[in-house]
């Protein structure tokens, strides 16, 4: 019987190696697999490359440092690939002080690179970023009279994903705007680990409503995480 559910966070995190590229889904707090990221912090892998939409928030004194900023603070992140990094944030300070690399990418290019990894497209041309700093070092070619740059697929050794419902085959649905990066990071991860709010029997999710088919999922952990919080 196929059963992708794991019983513990340790089992979910098992085998993640130093030097891994980790895809971290979510947009702000919504759809972000915070429990899995806490698990990764606990698990101990370092020298990581983290792919995440934003490391933009500036930390407010007195508040606990969590999530990707916490991983950065612990010195476990070699590089972030992100669309939004702000000076004065924990990530920004790490970059300023030379403790971490940052690759800033357009959000649509980030999404397309992830989808390309999942879909077996090693590289593609796009007009986004042509004629800007993003184009530096990239091949440029005109299509339909428009400059385009060549972008590479972005694979994850690990993808951390948050679902609303999941079954034992790893089929997933997402609640409202929490879908965001989750389905494409699930596709792009060589080891895709899911935290799900709810567990379904096989067959309970209608075939027409499954958003991420189980073929893209390796491990599922049941975490009743509650509603996303408002940004602090």
């Amino acid at each position, binding site marked *: 019987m196929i059963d992708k559910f794991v019983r513990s966070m340790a089992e979910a995190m098992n085998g993640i190696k130093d030097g891994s590229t980790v895809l971290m889904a979510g947009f702000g707090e919504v759809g972000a697999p915070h429990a899995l990221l806490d698990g990764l912090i606990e698990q101990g892998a370092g020298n990581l490359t983290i792919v995440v939409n*934003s490391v933009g928030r500036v930390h407010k004194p007195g508040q606990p440092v969590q999530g990707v900023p916490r991983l950065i603070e612990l010195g476990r992140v070699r590089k972030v690939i992100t669309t939004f990094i702000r000076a004065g944030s924990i990530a920004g300070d790490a970059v300023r002080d030379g403790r971490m690399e940052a690759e*800033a990418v357009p959000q649509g290019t980030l999404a397309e690179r992830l989808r390309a990894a999942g879909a077996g497209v090693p590289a593609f041309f796009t007009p986004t970023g042509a004629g800007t700093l993003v184009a530096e070092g990239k091949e440029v070619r005109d299509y339909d009279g428009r400059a385009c740059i060549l972008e590479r697929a972005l694979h994850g050794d690990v993808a951390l994903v948050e679902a609303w419902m999941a079954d034992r085959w790893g089929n997933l649905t997402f609640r409202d705007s929490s879908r965001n990066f989750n389905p494409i990071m699930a596709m792009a991860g060589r080891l895709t680990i899911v935290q799900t709010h709810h567990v379904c029997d096989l067959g309970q999710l209608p075939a027409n409503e499954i958003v991420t088919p189980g073929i893209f999922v390796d491990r599922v952990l049941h975490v009743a995480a509650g509603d996303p919080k408002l940004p602090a």
Partner: protein
Amino acid sequence: MSDTVTPLGRNGMAARAAQDIPEGWYVNLGIGIPTLIADHVPPDREVVFHSENGILGVGPAPEPHKQNPWLVNASTQRISIRPGGSFVHHADSFAMVRGGHLDLCVLGGFQVAENGDLANWAQSATEVGKQIGGAMDLAVGARQVWVTMEHTTKQGQPRLLRRCSYPLTAPGCVTRVYTNLAVLEVTPRGFGVLDIIPGLAFDELQSRTEATLHRA
């Protein structure tokens, strides 16, 4: 500026831009002033708002007791979704943007040049802060790109320039600019002034602008 002239506020700029959006358009609104535009489109004019994080048919901010923590816009503000709205994932969301399916995006700006170049994500190539978000995709992908911004910086430096000095978001993408003083279109011969706030003379507008203006 003459004492009798009142520059538009943030909502004034948003309202002025909203006025020009026709029914049936698919529109993405950037962070800041652009986000305010939705509230100024009359409810009986159907405009479909897109949000980068996978929403088509964004509705107004809900009343506090109706907030849905699972539903935020690209500024991570809690919003609502209209009847007919839909959710997609990030790649499909940007397929709408990059595939040329949006009629319009409205972005904030630091600088706009008379050739349509836009700079809105960083003030120098070397600074740590790189706030690209979805702006590069939107600037390249939407059929029309409008920018809302103050006509000058707080220090009175012009933002409508011959050439941008900040790193570009995209070259030659801006079609129209809504400032607190005027509405301008980008034409092959530079900025054309479409509208100007009451009481402000063309020459006074020019004096606050680096690029040469012409009457549209």
